[in-house]
């Protein structure tokens, strides 16, 4: 086997384009991931057309709120490009200078002040489905933030007014100079007056009114609490069932390394086996008995070469990315374990593909066509698709090594669940399964 391995290494060394791709591809992926993660997202450029008169404000429960306070909140998340007219904004969107434009109509203040009709801003956008989705979510999020800020102001005003109604005091805040008696003081005052009444029916009437005043005061007190919770009615308390909470950036690293490991390993193994067919050397090597190389030996040599090369690439990638993203280097032993078993399973998948295909181009194409959807399917989160479909996706992901390799590496790098032992056992099973399929493929060729 060692001579076969040495021969393959020599051929690999002489295949400059292939070696360049094997080196450059992971470096490019590592740099992209590193830069993408280490640099925060820049605010999207949005054109703003403000058609309102400058300094306009509206009144909320007697309090004046400047329109600028609302729009500042609305545009906090974006990079604002102010333009004078709607036409100019449309042009900027068309040219791609901005991702969207927001037009604030002149009647927005009247609409907000009316308390009856809903104020509206116009959003102009363009682009493909992805860009449209990005714009919608950005603008919706900005609007939600602005509306929340506005509703908090409204709540503050309402709570202050309720306090005044309950406790009494000066009505200046409500636009009147009078002092009013608070609702909570009315009931005791009425009861006091009732005690001094000679007529039994007058006393009974006053006591009934005092009872209502007491009831109203109590319920307005509750309403105050309701108002303060209504602006943020639900808060989330999260509980992770197993494993450690995984930061998105280190998970992205795990995904990038797993994808590179898969591509390099599957392509090398599949190409290696297919090359023997293409060069007509397969029959020369394995004919017999006695064969120059047993079929198992041939498959083992190809798996070793592919797994070894991709192992080096993956570990180098992890070390390279760790200069951008803080990874726990004390877990490097687990990285090695996860990458080694992942590489073996991908190598076995590669030889099965190579045994099915008759020549290198077909093997490479088949390897790509199979690997891409596998990576995609393994990243589909549960609950994001229909239940039955997710079961199918899970079953497919289970019988191919990508998801198991991803989970093993995630457990190794991030300590996430399932444990690395389970994933490694899974990968080992898949290595034997695809190794057997590769052996069967060679037998079929004979």
């Amino acid at each position, binding site marked *: 086997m060692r*001579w*076969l391995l040495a*021969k393959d290494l*020599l*051929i690999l060394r*002489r*295949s400059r384009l292939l070696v360049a791709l094997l080196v450059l591809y992971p470096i490019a992926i590592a740099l992209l991931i590193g830069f993408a993660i280490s640099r925060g997202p820049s605010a999207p450029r949005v054109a703003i057309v403000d058609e309102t008169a400058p300094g306009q404000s509206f009144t909320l429960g007697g309090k004046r709120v400047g329109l600028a306070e609302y729009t500042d909140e609305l545009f906090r998340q974006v990079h604002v490009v102010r333009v004078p007219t709607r036409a100019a904004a449309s042009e900027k969107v068309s040219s791609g200078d901005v991702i969207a434009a927001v037009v604030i109509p002149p009647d927005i203040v009247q609409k907000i002040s009316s308390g009856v009709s809903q104020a509206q801003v116009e959003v102009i956008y363009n682009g493909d489905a992805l860009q449209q989705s990005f714009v919608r979510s950005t603008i919706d999020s900005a609007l939600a933030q602005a509306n929340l800020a506005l509703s908090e102001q409204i709540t503050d005003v309402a709570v202050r007014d309720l306090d005044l109604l309950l406790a009494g005091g000066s009505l200046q805040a409500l636009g009147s100079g009078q002092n009013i008696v608070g609702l909570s003081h009315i009931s005791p005052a009425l009861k006091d007056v009732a005690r001094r009444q000679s007529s039994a029916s007058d006393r009974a009437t006053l006591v009934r009114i005092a009872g209502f005043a007491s009831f109203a005061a109590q319920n307005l007190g509750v309403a105050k609490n309701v108002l303060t919770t209504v602006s943020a009615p639900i808060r989330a308390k999260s509980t992770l069932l197993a494993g450690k909470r995984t930061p998105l950036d280190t998970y992205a690293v795990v995904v990038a390394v797993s994808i590179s490991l898969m591509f390099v390993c599957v392509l090398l193994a599949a190409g290696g086996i297919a090359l023997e067919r293409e*060069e*007509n*050397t397969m*029959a*020369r*090597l*394995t*004919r*017999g*008995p*006695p*064969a*120059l*190389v047993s079929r198992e030996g041939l498959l083992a040599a190809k798996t070793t070469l592919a797994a070894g090369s991709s192992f080096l690439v993956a570990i180098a990638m992890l070390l390279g990315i760790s200069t951008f993203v803080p990874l726990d280097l004390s877990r490097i032993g687990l990285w090695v374990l996860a990458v080694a078993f992942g590489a073996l399973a991908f190598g076995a998948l590669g030889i099965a593909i190579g045994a099915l295909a008759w020549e290198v181009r077909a093997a490479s194409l088949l390897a790509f066509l199979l690997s891409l959807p596998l990576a995609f399917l393994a990243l589909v989160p549960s609950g994001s698709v229909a239940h039955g479909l997710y079961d199918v996706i899970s079953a497919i992901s289970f019988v191919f090594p990508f998801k198991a390799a991803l989970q093993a590496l995630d457990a190794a790098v991030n300590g996430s669940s399932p444990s690395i032992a389970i994933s490694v056992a899974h990968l080992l099973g898949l290595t034997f399964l695809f190794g057997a399929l590769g052996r069967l493929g060679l037998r079929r060729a*004979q």
Partner: protein
Amino acid sequence: MRASGTTSGAASEGAAGSAEVLRAERLAKRYGERQALAEVSFSACASEMIALVGPNGAGKTTLLSILAGAQLPSSGAVRASAGAIGWVPQQPALYSKLTVAENLRLFARLARAPDVRVAVARMLEQTGLAQRADDRVGSLSGGNRQRVNVALGLLSSPSVVLLDEPSSALDPGQRERLWAFIAELASKGTAVLFSTHIVSEAERYAQRVLVLDEGELLFDGSPRGLAAQAGHAGDFEAAFVAYLRGAGRR
């Protein structure tokens, strides 16, 4: 099934008094419904040069690859003497990114040649490739590639060598040199079984001709015997065509 590696005890005296080095016993091969070989039996003796002729699809390559152990027969057996069977497939089976010497060295090592350096040097010398030893196979002409292909088949000094259309990619000069080389091998005791489309080569170089058609062995005898049976004493190619016609084949 193939009874492989039977020892020299299996060898017997051939018709000409030479030791029998290869025997095919009722070899059959089916690909699904198609019968590629139908109970083909023959034997080969040391120093014998045997031509395997037949139209396209007759089963020549299938027979040679079964004899070489590259394919399993559906039924029947191959018995060979202790020496290995050398095989030169129709398409050169070489690593184009390796040099001539690297190809020879690799296969000599895999064949566990007692002295790899000597074996490689001998084959470079015998095939006249010493000057091209460090050239990559991918850069060689078709003729030189075929010479490397033949050299690989002979690396282990086999007692039988099977050549599948060895001259098909060669020009007349290269063809001449190849046949001189093969004849020399036979003169040193190697049994040679070769398939060819060039019927005149069979007449010129072979002592025996096997005619195969639709998987059946129709004739096993001397070229002269074939011509006599076909009733064409002069032109061997015409005699071969007439023989097939007479057998109700083409």
